[in-house]
């Protein structure tokens, strides 16, 4: 605690201070300092510095939250949540802050400590790096660097979805102040603090599937035609594909519409997802086209093991497991050699499984490999991205 903090307290006491189990008020020539634990002291103005020292943790705590922490409601609430301020009275909290109070936010881990003047210091790193020595991590101190870290995963692949559970590890922001901590978190997981706070205040503006799709125009307007009044099974599949905790750390709060919940669990994330994101909308556009096709009956020659192998390959891709399959693990149906063997044995020269053409009318022309899946506007991936003009 420093003199400036006591001076600030003396000023504020004129209007009365009541915060986190601590009260200070003016009484005659002096002040009354009191705590929720029952301590109460009447002190002459000249002795305030000396007496306030007995309440140092309360005074510095009050000062931090009113003079140091960002005052915007959501940022303030988030920082309070980080140190469990609403759960633990100041003496207990300060004892815990001495060791560091640790919270996770998605894949982020925040550790909060406090110094003698009540200043909080925030250490931010990947939760997987919780036990790694600081020297083993790359140090950053500029919140803007979070944008760069968040851009690619550990294998250098671009992360279009910031809340995908693929945040790279190996870095550390040490000794961030409260405002910079919130900024850094917001660069890693944009708007999660704001939406988390809105939800806590009962003010989360959820936009469900139906209204979100109804809003779409341009190349995405077609998604509205996917809802044909035949239930929401297709949206369940979208949510299972894209919004599962294994794919996104936001907790899905949007449903089919205001009255109809999806049949899929929304997940256990700390922060909510308030509407289908641009990735979901973009994928839904593709599925709207693909799902416009009618099913057909195909007849394939496969051994029982080959059938199971096809299933194993789909599972491995869907679970993002292909990179983990060891090169010589021939027992795994999704092993590369196994897949190449299957292709060598069962695909014809045109790439048709078991020689069965995709379109029966095109049998024998050897050019049927992508019939049925080509869009009217071509297969160029760029068409999923509108032009920037």
């Amino acid at each position, binding site marked *: 605690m420093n003199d400036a903090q006591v001076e600030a307290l003396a000023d504020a006491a004129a209007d009365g201070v009541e915060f986190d189990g601590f009260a200070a008020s003016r009484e005659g020539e002096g002040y009354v300092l009191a705590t929720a634990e029952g301590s109460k002291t009447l002190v002459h103005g000249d002795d305030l510095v000396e007496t306030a020292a007995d309440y140092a943790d309360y005074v510095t705590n009050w000062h931090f939250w009113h003079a140091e922490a*960002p005052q*915007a409601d959501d*940022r303030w609430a988030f920082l309070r949540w980080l140190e469990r301020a609403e759960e633990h009275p100041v003496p207990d909290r300060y004892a815990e802050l001495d060791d560091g109070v640790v919270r996770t936010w998605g894949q982020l881990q925040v550790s909060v400590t406090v110094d003698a003047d009540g200043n909080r210091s925030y250490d931010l790193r990947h939760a997987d790096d919780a036990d790694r020595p600081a020297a083993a991590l790359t140090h950053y101190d500029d919140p*803007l660097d979070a*944008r760069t870290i968040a*851009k*690619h995963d550990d294998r250098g692949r*671009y992360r*279009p*979805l*910031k*809340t995908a559970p693929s945040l790279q590890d190996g870095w550390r922001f040490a000794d961030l102040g409260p405002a910079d901590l919130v900024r850094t978190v*917001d660069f890693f997981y*944009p*708007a999660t*603090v*704001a*939406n988390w706070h*809105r939800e806590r205040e009962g003010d989360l*503006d959820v936009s469900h599937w139906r209204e979100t799709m109804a*809003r779409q*125009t*341009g190349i995405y307007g077609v998604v509205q035609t996917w809802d044909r009044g035949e239930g929401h099974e297709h949206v369940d599949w979208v949510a299972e594909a894209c919004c599962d905790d294994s794919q996104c750390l936001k907790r899905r709060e949007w449903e089919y519409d205001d009255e109809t919940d999806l049949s899929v669990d929304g997940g256990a994330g700390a922060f909510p997802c*308030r*509407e289908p*994101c*641009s*990735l979901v909308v*973009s994928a839904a556009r593709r599925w709207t086209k693909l799902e416009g096709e009618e099913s057909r009956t195909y007849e394939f020659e496969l051994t029982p093991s080959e059938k199971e192998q096809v299933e194993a390959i789909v599972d491995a891709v869907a679970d993002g497991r292909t990179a983990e399959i060891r090169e010589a693990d021939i027992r795994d149906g999704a092993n590369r050699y196994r897949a190449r063997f299957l292709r060598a044995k069962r695909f014809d020269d045109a790439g048709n499984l078991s020689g069965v053409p995709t379109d029966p009318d095109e049998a024998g022309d050897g050019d049927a490999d992508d019939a049925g899946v080509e869009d009217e506007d071509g297969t160029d*991936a*760029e068409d*999923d*991205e*509108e*032009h*920037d*003009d």
Partner: protein
Amino acid sequence: MPALVIVAHGSHLNASSSTPTFDHADTIRATGAFDEVREAFWKEEPSFREVLRTIESDEVYVVPLFISEGYFTEEVIPRELRLDGWDPDAWESDGTSATHTTLEATDVGKTVHYCGPVGTHDAMSDVIVQRAESVTGNSDVGEGFGLAVVGHGTERNENSAKAVEYHADRIRDRDRFDEVEALFMDEDPEVDDVTDFFQSDDIIVVPLFIADGYHTREDIPEDMGLTDDYRTGWETPAIVDGHRIWYSGAVGTEPLMADVVLERAKDAGADVDDAVATVREETTGAAAGD
């Protein structure tokens, strides 16, 4: 103090699409002209839908990092930002003359000064010229050189071509380059035939695009004959039909673009005169020193 939000397209596929947006935002952050500067994207996060709730200020200047007026600036951005009472007529634009309008974003109750796109601001002509200087490494470049400003064309948006022609006309009027032409990817005069449109031995080609991507890195270089395969790269300058082609890549990556963002906010009432001076000095000085 008001905040600045730069809204851009972004990409699900291309990691470098957001890079110019980040770079220009950082340049402006460093001036301290705004307490808060934030980037938002159609395809990335924070989304247009959620960026305003990450801002503390009650007053926000929103500048679209887009080339022309059209679908995004008139429909998508105002809708996603929930700008109450938005009507494209509020800009009273002829297709290239939108400046700004002030509205409220209904989900956050903030005052939004919604600005026209950077691509149609007069200062963009300076960026194109600066880009020409950067790619040639010559701060006096002009005499003996032709300049081609390249855009999409009107296939998707008629204002796209207007913006290209607008700047080509302005730069031509300065009499700095021997020849200035507006060329397009999907209509005549086509960039494929770039050398047909110039007498000059040296032709500088500046695509009026915000970020480098498929069109500027693959399409245009191959169409002009700088290379048979974009993956193998090309020389700068590259010789095509006896002309030297100085291909600059997307104009939006030019550091001076930060100035255009500031100019947009300034026209809408932001107090950024000092920042404009600083950015102009830094971004043109850096390029001249190359």
